[in-house]
């Protein structure tokens, strides 16, 4: 269950950004790296990250619960987070949400039975000019969405 050596190397690189006596500074990126490897952050994973950095587990847990993009419960292989904030709302993010809900048969904070997709509602992602939009797994941004474009994007994903 321990972190892969690849993840450890990535965390080590993050640590070089900070003075050696401030290893806690790397906790946000370390948690991100762990989540990318494991899909979500279990209590054990969080404790392991804390251990690796040499900080109290509670310090890592506090960070994991404070920031929205950490997942503290298992999610599908593809987590789709749709922005519904004002600029996206004005350009009908609701249509995209309805389309996804129908197509996947799930609502916000739900996962499809086959474990492929989780749907989430997001706050402003700082890309409002490209509204409506969503990102997949915190990393790939898709902008100027239409229901047809959503279909194409979903078809393009490995199942």
């Amino acid at each position, binding site marked *: 269950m321990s972190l892969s050596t690849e993840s450890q190397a990535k965390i080590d690189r993050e640590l070089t950004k900070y003075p050696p006596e401030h290893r806690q500074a790397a906790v946000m*990126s370390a948690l991100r790296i762990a989540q990318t490897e494991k899909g979500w952050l279990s209590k054990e994973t969080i404790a392991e990250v804390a251990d690796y950095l040499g900080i109290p587990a509670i310090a890592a847990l506090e960070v994991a619960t404070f920031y929205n993009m950490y997942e503290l419960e298992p999610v599908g292989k593809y987590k789709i987070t749709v922005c519904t904030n004002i*600029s996206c709302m004005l350009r009908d993010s609701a249509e995209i949400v309805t389309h996804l809900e129908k197509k996947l048969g799930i609502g916000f904070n739900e996962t499809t039975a086959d474990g492929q997709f989780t749907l989430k509602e997001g706050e402003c*992602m700082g890309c*409002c000019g490209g509204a409506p939009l969503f990102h997949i797994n915190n990393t790939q941004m898709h902008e100027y969405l239409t229901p047809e474009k959503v279909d194409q994007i979903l078809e393009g994903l490995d199942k």
Partner: protein
Amino acid sequence: MSATQTLVCLRTVGQDNPASLATYLKLGGYAQLQKLVTEKVKATEIISQVKLSGLRGRGGAGFPTGLKWSFMPRYFDGTKYLVCNTDEGEPGTFKDRDIIRYNPHQLIEGMAIAAYTLGARVGYNYIHGEIWQDYEIFEAALEEARAAGFLGENLFGTGFSFDLYAVHGYGAYICGEETALIESIEGKKGQPRFKPPFPASYGVFGKPTNVNNTESYTSIPWIMEHGGQAFQELGVANSGGSKIFSISGHVDKPGNYEVNMGIPFAELLALAGGVWKGRQLKAVIPGGPSTAVLPAAAIIGATMDYDGLSKAGSSLGAGSMIVMDETTCMVKTLKRLSYFFFEESCGQCTPCREGTGWLYRVIKRIVDGQGRLEDLDLLTDVSSNISGRTICALGDAAATPVLSFIKHFRPEFEYYIRHGRSMVEDGLAAQSQAQQEVAYA
């Protein structure tokens, strides 16, 4: 006359490989850094050019950058830090993203000049969580700049050293507030600190720290090249320079437009293709939701600069212009904004934590058809009680939309409360009904 853009911070946009070092060098990039550092130009001279430029912080508060720089302690026995705030998460704001993905080197050069001026040895650029691909572009630009000798130790053989790193946020609007951002860099929850002490005396790891917005730093190389006076002259009194306006919502061509400060609102709207679908303009939030909404009549004749927008009854904020056409229901729009502030309150101060939740619940109740007329006074009271009683400005930011939406669009709220339905949607339904009747006649 139709306005054109002035590309200062978005200078590489439209070039091939805009983010590459080669492109930036071709446009004269890093020459200012090299010149200042090798000629050992005095910090006081640089700061006086920045003061002359009239550059005011582009993160939203509009604090004069030159003055802020003069607060950094000159002599300090230890590391001083430089922080760039690329955490933009205020709805409608998306300009800094274009800087890091299209023109990252100008930001790096601007930060290196600031570091030289302020004696900062290490810098961090804190980047908003959701824009991972752009974060990677910036990381790649940092690698290029290091390899080319524009970052690192003993730059240009002068003994001046500056290391710059990218830090990735993970979804918390509050981290845009500079002290929350500093906490976050340190690997903690993003909860704002009490000020004073200000970052200039107690910032990252407790050390003197200068925090500026991405666009502020990115303006610096241009100011060094052309002089503070020239930058000031791009704009108008009290608002020097060019400014990137992020235009979103109901326009034909949403996007970033970099123009001279003081541009008439109507010209800027025209640049973005005007209101979409041939519809009428209803309202504009000129600087992001923490600035007051203005009805069309109040903004149509305004100029886009600090004084112009304050005369019109709002403020420039981060230049995040959210345009709403005649089909927008202001009650539902306010509900979404109130949810945002409620969701993003960090929970430290009771008036903000409780107040934002209360505001959201009351507006939701109105939208759900359960509103009472007294609710409008209640909303105003709760908002006024948040303002000025909190650690950071998020509390005020949450109150502003509530107060300004109700002030300017009260009849819509009253209609919603009386009928349990949206006045705008009822109007649209009646219109389409009438059209159908005409078609059948």
